[in-house]
């Protein structure tokens, strides 16, 4: 921003003609990030209409938008988004509640047990939650619990691993210093271990949430009666192509928003983190 301003000042010194040229250059520079998206949108709209590509498989963006308005108007779109988000957050929340305390207990209090358990935990963490989905359905039925389990499983391991790593990675000097002041164990936990491990834990939360959202969509495509994944599946079965694109776009947007929100939350909770 500041560099742009300085360019602007220089421009005013110049004669009127070049001033507009510089303005244009600045605007172009600022819009650089969006050109790619703009061209894509334009092509998407124009190409099917001019018959460059088959509009049956590639409906123009306006018809996808129209489909979106229709679904929004009758309220179904909101329901699907809400259902998918609710499943994600519920699973994520439960994983947080279980993984963070157990990570602290394992990493902070039982280092030997942690070493003993690490290979096992690694193995469990490597199991793709999606491959367990049939089992979850078998155990918990086709209802909400199976979908919840897949999210829970996907979030649990990254958060647990990063919590253990975060606790064990807390600078020993911090612990030494807090101990030298005669601080109790609970004080050490609250004032040193938790803030010290928080940045690492957040990495796990971000990874977990991203994977979980992807897994959820896949799970909804297999066994659900609502949700964005179901919307994709249902549209493809019923051959409503614009709706399929609509669902895919909304999933992409939600994924971006989810990631961005976690970033914002991280910046809010960890103001000391250097960029």
């Amino acid at each position: 921003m500041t560099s742009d301003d300085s360019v602007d000042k220089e421009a005013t010194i110049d004669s009127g003609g070049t001033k507009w040229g510089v303005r244009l250059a600045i605007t172009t520079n600022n819009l650089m990030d969006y050109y790619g998206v703009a061209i894509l949108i334009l092509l998407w709209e124009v190409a099917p209409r001019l018959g460059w590509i088959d509009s049956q498989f590639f409906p123009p963006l306006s018809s996808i938008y129209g489909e979106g308005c229709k679904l929004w108007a009758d309220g179904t779109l909101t329901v699907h988004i809400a259902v998918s988000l609710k499943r994600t957050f519920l699973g994520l929340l439960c994983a947080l509640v279980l993984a963070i305390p157990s990570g602290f207990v394992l990493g902070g209090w039982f280092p030997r047990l942690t070493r003993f358990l690490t290979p096992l935990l690694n193995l469990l963490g490597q199991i793709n939650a999606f491959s367990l989905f049939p089992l979850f359905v078998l155990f918990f039925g086709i209802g909400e619990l199976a979908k919840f389990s897949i999210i829970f499983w996907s979030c649990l391991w990254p958060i647990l691993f990063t919590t253990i790593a975060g606790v064990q990675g807390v600078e020993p000097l911090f612990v030494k210093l807090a101990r030298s002041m005669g601080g109790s164990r609970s004080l050490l936990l609250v004032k040193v271990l938790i803030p010290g491990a928080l940045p690492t834990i957040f990495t796990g939360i971000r990874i977990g949430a991203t994977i979980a959202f992807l897994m959820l969509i896949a799970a909804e495509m297999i066994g659900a009666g609502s949700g964005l994944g179901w919307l994709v599946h249902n549209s493809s079965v019923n051959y409503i192509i614009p709706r399929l694109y609509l669902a895919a776009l909304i999933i992409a947007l939600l994924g971006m928003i989810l990631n961005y929100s976690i970033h914002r939350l991280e910046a809010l909770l960890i103001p000391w983190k250097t960029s």
Partner: protein
Amino acid sequence: MARAEDSPVRIDTEAKILVKGITSVYHLKKNRTEQAREFIALKDINLEVRKGEFLVLVGPSGCGKSTLLDILAGLAVPTSGAVYIDGKIVTGPALDRGIVLQGYALFPWRTVRRNVEFGLEIKKVPKRDRTAISDHFINLVGLDGSAHRYPHELSGGMKQRVAIARALAYDPEVLLMDEPFAAVDAQTRENLQDELLRIWEATGKTIIFVTHSIEEAVFLGDRVAVLTPNPGTLREIVNIDLPRPRHNSDTRGSAEFGWIRRKIWELLQNSPSDVKRSLDKLKLQNASPDAKHHLNLLPVADIISPTASL
């Protein structure tokens, strides 16, 4: 734990800090099958520190000076011997001793102010009093205006000032400093030394300061305890009677400063066994009873030097 059984809990002493027969032995294992080897970090250290004194422990790495400081802080337990503060045995860390470490150990998630207030929070000082106290100590170390900043925004010298303010804020009577200025550049280091003396004179704390820099030791200390390694033993305590207040410009340039620095340097150069060997050799050459007395007057380096005129 054995310490509490064989040492009295309380003894009568004038000294602020009394170190009595401290020995610290580690058991080292290179691998799992090997039998543990004993490593004597400290061997029978005896030391008395007066109230308000500035004592410097100097020695090469591996002489156990940091171990001794950890024992004084109550963070490590000696194999035998005990430390008394005001005649009361030290059984663990407490707020009567403040500690400043080489690595600063500032909490990155706390601002300067909140770092300084850390000990006060442990001491359960009410919030409104904390602000006044932290303000006072932030000013004392010359960081006014930086209270809201985070450690990553500060230079090394500023970080160490915060660490000193933090150690002083909860008003300990003793300040333990473990090579606090080892990580900053030479210029900052001399400034910090000046500042530390000023703060010490202003607060009247008893300071035990560990360093491997002879120059730093002589400039700061009332007395300098010279430690030698393998095993860590207290070689000698050198009185530094340079006039106070000391300043970088005139103190360091004085002839006396240079002389004391050289004396400590020599003490560190020669391990006791070297000196004994050369003394034995000399005894063979010159069996007169005065010889030993005469030799004590000579600088140690001259005794063992093959070219020294005898």
